[in-house]
């Protein structure tokens, strides 16, 4: 799977979230700066599961893993059992 494509899909999803404020780039600290809130995380998890076909294990629910779009893309790649639907 291509990490760059996963990252691209995540960036697109985040920028399209209702009420999303500000620029988002691969290394934007979206948790620390409050751009991604808890309901946003739940929406993002739903998107990753439904559109990319990847389920994130509970053990990966760690701040660092959701810190930036790039770390989320890493998480999706690491959690994928086989291919990612990008």
């Amino acid at each position, binding site marked *: 799977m291509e990490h760059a494509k996963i990252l691209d899909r995540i960036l697109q999803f985040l920028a399209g979230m*209702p*009420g999303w*404020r500000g620029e988002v780039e691969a290394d934007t600290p979206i*948790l620390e700066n*409050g*751009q*991604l*809130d*808890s*309901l*946003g*995380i*739940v929406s993002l*998890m*739903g998107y990753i599961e439904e559109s990319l076909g990847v389920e994130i294990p*509970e*053990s*990966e*629910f*760690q*701040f660092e893993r*959701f810190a930036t779009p790039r770390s989320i893309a890493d998480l999706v790649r690491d959690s994928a059992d086989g291919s990612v639907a990008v």
Partner: protein
Amino acid sequence: MSQIEVAFPERIPARLGPELTRRVLYLDEDIDDFALIEDGDEITGLRLVGPITRTARPESLIETLMQEAQGLRSVEPKRVWSSRRPSGPGSGIRADDVIRELIDAGDARVHGPGTISLRGAHADLLTVLDDMFAALSMDVAGAEHHRFPTLLGTSVLERGGYLESFPNLLLTVNRLRNTSADFERFRDHRRSGGSLNELESATIPVEYCLPPTMCYYIYDSHVGTRSDELRVLTAVGSSFRFEHRYESPLRRLWDFTIRETVWIGERDDVRRGLERYRGLVTALCDELGLAGLCESAHDPFFLADNGAAKAAAQQMIGSKTELRLFLDDDETVAAASFNQHGQHLAAQYDIGLSDGAPASTACVGIGLERFTLAFLAQHGTDPRRWPSIVARAVAAQADRPGRVAVREWVSST
């Protein structure tokens, strides 16, 4: 009394015990008591006591419980404050003794499930503690003061998604249908010794609920508004949440008092406002000599869509933190919660910034009965032993300007 043991399909870390405990009594009204079965640092099952063992399949309840516990397993709470006063063995903190003392002396009275009253200096103590939080809200954070009614329109709670997220806590208000035939039927029913609970057909759909917290009035007051300016508002009032387990008076009440402060505005302004207020509250706890801690937490979602994921996400990012004060050597009670909602609630209530995007919101709720209980558990029931800042304020309650003015007026007439 019947009792049954049910093994969990998988072992749960013992640190999630409080989470499971919080949920078990909402599984079925007929659970009178329960115990978690522990094996080392894991929970392996549940011992249920009560008629539940005859009326339902405990296995199906366990399945529900397991779903609720999912998602929380790997998320450790993050601590943001620890009190200067230490806790632990030898702390001398004893909430149970204090409650017994208050009740024996007539200074507290349990009126029924989840309701309690305080009198004299102990009632004044709650007022004084609220005055202190009101001062932080109004005089330091610049909040506008509001006084709200008790009845809250059901539609207001519906709009915020409360009915789906916390159905287990909801308390509703009912009344008879306004027709002479229904009133007559009600009168005849009562005369024949009938119960109110048998009169469903004579009542109308629920228009009002009892408020679970004050902040819903605030969001409702701002529907359709647009502003970039930071808005800070505060109110104190009676709040209501159903709690099955009521045998610990003051810990869990159906009817309690919240001092709530809400921030509405740009994300960074709201977050700074909330964090500053949290710092003030925890510093005040140190000033009052209270032992406690403040750490990340999550809302008690129960059977809500994605409830476990929402709870885990809240805990992970620290959007909710709780001030927990010690009631004895190890037990704590959540006396305040600090909540960042992002744009979620503002989107639901159409509260916007000037460009039309949803504002950010945050709120702090301080449970005054719980705070009072923790204060008494830690300082005792004798006002002479309370920190002087509190003791002086309690003693001065009789000299509040309104009372002095009325006393002077009465004595002059």
